[in-house]
């Protein structure tokens, strides 16, 4: 009887417990769902941001791959060209002359200046190169496509609206009329912007290109790769395979881990104080940039190489030592080749970081305005990310789209490098 009583009491008690649980269950499941939703929301938020970034840069940048050209009938007037030597002749005068012939009704200094402003100053250089290449053109009249000024370019790409009051518009009403006439005569055309990929920097957006910066980046990365790859491997091999466990190797390890997290601009200060002021190396040179970036990427490469050396199983080392290889032979002939894919992956990722890095290079003067294409490791030059930084500061509307285009090129390089790293990892990854 009492036994029964106890079980019922227990049953009521347990029913109460399950009731409590059941009562809270709906709330708890809702909390569960909410929590899960937060997680998805977090991921979606970062992916949305990623796509906004890519889409906005692409949308701003793709028009820069085209440039507006105007067709002029240029008369290579022997009279004008004879006044000076062919290299210093008045080529802008030729351009102005042909513009005057096309629009004979334009009178007055201000109007004429407005007319001349529609053609880029690069047209004169184009004529000069033509004459120097082939002096036979003197005396002929040739129909030529010359680059338009950046304002005309912006107008033909629809960034300058007609309905804006004239005082706030960079293209004036008269210029609009001339442009309309040009387009009626099919003398205005958008073409692939070759200048963007072949020229150095310029103050004129229509003449500015990224090739100088690309070459600067190339030389800088060559220096970085040549130094950081062998040094990184050597350091990793020593620390992983030879180093005794003592205070010194601990110190080295702490240092490497710390350097990996030191802000990149501090490496720039180091480069400024040591390489430029102490050793007197040239400013703005890819050589110095490469040295600074080497110091910056070394920790990354060392850490990746060590991880990949660690992944080689000890049995391989023991087998090599067992048949009489020395420790050095064991490492050079067996361990290192097996770890190489991982090391290469780490190196490529390090190089990608170095390619996108700009802060330390600002410190060593690679922000200069450099028109010439660098031809060596000590020529003053800039790099692609710094070029983006420089252009982003320029007020001209046309530079905004060129900045975006340069960004697209930089991102394309980075994507290629990272994809290669991923491919290498997938292709050669070995699980032991």
């Amino acid at each position: 009887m009492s036994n029964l009583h106890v079980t019922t009491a227990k049953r009521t008690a347990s029913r109460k417990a399950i009731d409590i649980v059941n009562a809270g269950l709906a709330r708890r499941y809702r909390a569960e769902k909410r929590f899960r939703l937060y997680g998805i929301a977090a991921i979606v938020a970062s992916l949305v941001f990623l796509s906004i970034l890519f889409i906005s840069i692409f949308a701003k940048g793709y028009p820069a791959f085209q440039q507006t050209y105007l067709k002029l009938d240029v008369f290579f007037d022997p009279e004008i060209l004879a006044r000076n030597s062919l290299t210093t002749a008045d080529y802008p005068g030729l351009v102005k002359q042909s513009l005057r012939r096309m629009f004979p009704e334009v009178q007055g200094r201000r109007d004429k200046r407005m007319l001349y402003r529609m053609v880029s100053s690069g047209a004169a250089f184009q004529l000069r190169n033509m004459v120097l290449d082939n002096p036979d053109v003197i005396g002929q009249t040739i129909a030529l496509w010359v680059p338009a000024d950046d304002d005309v370019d912006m107008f033909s790409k629809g960034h300058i609206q007609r309905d804006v009051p004239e005082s706030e518009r960079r293209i004036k009403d008269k210029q609009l009329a001339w442009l309309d006439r040009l387009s009626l005569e099919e003398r205005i055309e958008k073409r692939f912007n070759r200048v963007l990929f072949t020229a150095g920097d310029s103050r004129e957006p229509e003449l500015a290109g990224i090739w100088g910066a690309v070459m600067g980046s190339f030389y800088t990365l060559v220096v970085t790769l040549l130094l950081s790859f062998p040094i990184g491997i050597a350091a990793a091999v020593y620390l992983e395979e030879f180093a005794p466990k003592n205070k010194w190797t601990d110190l080295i390890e702490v240092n490497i881990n710390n350097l990996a997290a030191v802000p990149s601009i501090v490496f720039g200060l180091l480069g400024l104080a040591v390489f430029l002021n102490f050793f007197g190396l040239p400013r703005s040179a890819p050589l110095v940039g490469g040295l600074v970036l080497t110091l910056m990427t070394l920790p990354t490469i060392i850490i990746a190489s060590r991880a990949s050396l660690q992944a080689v199983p000890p049995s391989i080392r023991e087998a090599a030592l067992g048949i009489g290889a020395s420790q050095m032979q064991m490492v050079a002939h067996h361990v290192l080749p097996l770890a190489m894919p991982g090391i290469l992956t780490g190196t490529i990722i390090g190089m990608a970081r170095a390619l996108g890095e700009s802060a330390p290079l600002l410190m060593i003067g690679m922000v200069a305005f450099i028109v010439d294409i660098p031809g060596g490791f000590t020529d003053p030059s800039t790099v692609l990310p710094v070029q983006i930084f420089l252009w982003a500061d320029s007020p001209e509307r046309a530079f905004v789209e060129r900045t975006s285009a340069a960004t697209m090129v930089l991102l394309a390089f980075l994507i290629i490098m990272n994809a290669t790293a991923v491919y290498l990892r997938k292709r050669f990854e070995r699980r032991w």
Partner: protein
Amino acid sequence: MITPSITFMVLIMLSFGAFWIGRRRAFAVAGNRAGLIAMHSRPVYYGLLTALWCAVPALLIFSAWTIFEGAIITQLVVNDLPDEIRSLPPDRLNLVVNDIKNLVSGNVVATKIDQNMQAAADHYRHLRALSNMALAVVVLAAGMAATLVLRQRISGHLRARNQVERIIKWILIACSTLAIFTTIGIVLSVLFEAIRFFQVIPVTDFIFGLEWSPQMAIREDQVGSSGAFGAIPVFAGTLMISAIAMFVAVPIGLMSAIYLSEYANRRFRAVAKPLMEILAGIPTVVYGFFAALIVAPVIRDAGIGIGLDVSSESALAAGLVMGVMIIPFVSSLSDDVINAVPQALRDGSYGLGATQSETIRQVVLPAALPGIVGGVLLAISRAIGETMIVVMAAGLAANLTANPLKTVTTVTVQIVTLLVGDQEFDSPKTLAAFALGLVLFIATLILNVIALQVVRKYREQYE
């Protein structure tokens, strides 16, 4: 014209030749197969040893020469300058030397070229050609001499392999100590200039001063501010932007790490994780451009829309974008530590009837907390040291304000603006950049050391 790079190339080719000479010599000494077996090392090691003998001393001479060449030649040229130029104060003399160097490299010189300068430039050019020639002779002679000496010593008793391995091991050690030298270099270069700065501006004024305006009058009579180097507004701005970045990065990064490691199935993980890592691979200059061009105007327009006065270089825009940049950093570090929490803890919690989110919140996260804290500390150190985003999207004006819609400036922005462009190198303005660099280095160093310690301790706990 013999340039150092040609000398270097020739030296490298020479050591390839030395390898071949040494190897052939070993074969010649051995004579036949039995002789080869009797030799101490295989022929390739005799070749390697010869190549190392050829290259290593010559390379040491080469690098020492190129390091000291510039200073010595400059000194020689200065000694030959007329007395009235030599007696100029050091900074003026430096300008003259710079002009001479520019003249030598064919750059445009600002001042007009006089006879003395032209003569000095010619002298400089002559000395440099002479030095290059001498370098080539000395380096190549050293390489060849060492090769010949070793060639004579090759015999069956020469322990070539051991010697090669010893040399290589020393090279490996030298490479791995580079990290220490880099740290020492950073500390010395920053500290040295910072001390010079603190000789002019007292440390207390720098650390506790409330006003930052580094523009200084260069000449005594010039009208302009006298320069104020109180760094509190700069530090405050750095902290505010970093805090905004953390408000974005920590919740989003942590939640996505939790979702990816606890909820997501394999396929979702395989797609979402690399996509998020793209965010980490985008160069900071691109983020900066994006912040200045798109985010800042959007925030300003939105602020004006609801009647707020938003600066076009607001701390909010820079902080938001920086936060996005740091998301993958937080997320991958948290992912690691969450995965390191033993499954047994989760199973125990499920066994007690907890739902998955309760398990995560009450078991997994507390267990992973030290690791997550370490990751967040590392993220803060990245935010403090981040440069390009703030240079492009944050302002220059050092306002001491708690309003994220106002313009603030950061340590890194100030370093960049103080050092980019032409300044004399010993003005307090330039040196201030190094003092800020010192503060930045120390702050990030402390954060990193604490974070690495915390993470390491935590890892050991569950291993």
